[in-house]
């Protein structure tokens, strides 16, 4: 980890449940290099993270769907983690996690590791432009992480 870059394919990465009923379509899309957010088919409201009902119009899960977003945004806030109890991450410290407001709609914010490259963490700034990078962290698991850039 001497250059600050994040490795692919770590055996003990805390992977998500790809079959989780609320998130399965999201993970299926990331494996195809597409980034989705939740969209209500009744009123069109987009939402992240996804929920079991639409808070805007009250419709139930059956009418909730998905919309693709561009995968670019800006850092809204971030943390540099020096202590982690999670498997794999306890060895990866320090690493940076950013909350990114999406260009498609700044009200949509998505959390993710920030691959900060060779720069030290203090060069991460609020407002910094980033784009998504789907990182293959385990068999079939493509995690949306973020890299500096337009």
């Amino acid at each position, binding site marked *: 980890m001497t250059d600050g870059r994040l490795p692919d394919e770590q055996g003990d990465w805390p992977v998500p449940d790809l079959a989780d009923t609320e998130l399965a379509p999201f993970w299926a899309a990331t494996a195809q290099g597409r980034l989705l957010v939740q969209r209500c088919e009744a009123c069109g409201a987009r939402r992240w*993270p996804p929920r079991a009902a639409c808070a805007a119009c009250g419709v139930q899960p059956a009418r909730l769907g998905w919309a693709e977003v561009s995968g670019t945004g800006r850092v809204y*806030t971030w*943390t540099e983690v020096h202590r*982690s109890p999670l498997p794999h991450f306890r060895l990866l410290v320090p690493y940076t996690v950013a909350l990114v407001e999406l260009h498609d709609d700044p009200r949509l914010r998505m*959390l993710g590791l920030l691959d900060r490259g060779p720069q030290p*963490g203090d060069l991460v700034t609020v407002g910094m432009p980033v784009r998504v990078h789907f990182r293959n962290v385990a068999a079939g698991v493509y995690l949306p992480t973020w890299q500096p850039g337009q």
Partner: protein
Amino acid sequence: MTDGVTGCVIVGVGETEYSRRSGRSEIRLAVEALRAALTDAGLPPRAVDGIVSYPGSPRAEDLIGALGLPGVRFSATPQLGGASSVASLQLAAAALAAGSATVVACVFARNGNSGKRIATRIDQLLPGGYLRRGLEHPQGLSTPAQWYSLLCRRHMHEYGTTREQLGTVALTMRRHAQLNPRAQLHGRELTMAEYLASPPVALPYLLLDCCLETDGGCVVLVTRPDRGRDCRQPPVAVAAVAEGHPDSPDDITGRTPFLETGLRYAAARAFAAAGLRPADVDVALIYDCFTFEVLHQLEEAGFCAPGEGGPFAASGAITLGGSLPVNPHGGLLGEGHLGGMNHVAEAVRQVRGECGQRQVPGARVAAVTGWGDLGDGSMAILVPGD
């Protein structure tokens, strides 16, 4: 009970010693703290007919079994993380108002340091498990220090809150702990240089921005005013108590406004119910899980304007002798992490006027906040009960 007005009183508070290693079970800690509170109130164990236990603490069944309390007819557990201690008072008040109980014990006990510590405990207690395990753990985010550091960073960006202002909170809590022999960090002063040199945990948070993890128990006894008159101590009235939740309480990341917390709603409800304003408060017990959360809650509760928490603390306002002394006992940062039940106990003792060298002179109105999970909030306002 209408609109947060409780009509109930606190007649006893008690605790064990606060330590890094209690050497005994959590049930024993709960029993000892309950016995201490009963002694304080001058009540026998069998007077307790209601038990509200903090999430993860020994349950009503545990205490009934240990002490033999066949008369217990009300039990409950709030689910607001660290805001649960103050929220316990609301459950107690509701039970008393409904006639479901006459003496309710609000119980916290935990081997929070020598047993399961926060990072491994939290996963079982938080809302939104699918969001934690699906979207946060895979990205390396899993602890309160990490979540709340995102709030702190954004606050610094929006308002210019500084590292030194966070340090002021750490130093103030530690200074207060020097006046409290029960405090875990009694006898250990802290300088700004030591604070600034402490190792990073989740930047902006350094180790000394984070509260203690503690073994211990703390119990608060709540009853009706007519019953309170027979007790050993002067009753302290719960003038009002309320809880509140941000939208959304199961997730920090998508919240708009981002810095909204449940305390914003809880404090507004509590002050309205009590017919008081923030300026009427003589002493504040703020749930200081991390330094920034003190600044944040001072704003959210209305003690200062949004964005002014840092300058407010740096002005000396939160120190004993300042305009709003905060946590004379040293708080979670200096006395110990008893889930904020120790904040309720300190508020009771401040209103009774029995706090010795850390007493806020003439304190009659104490406000206690709770902060928990991903931003749930609670507030109680305590005043003399006679």
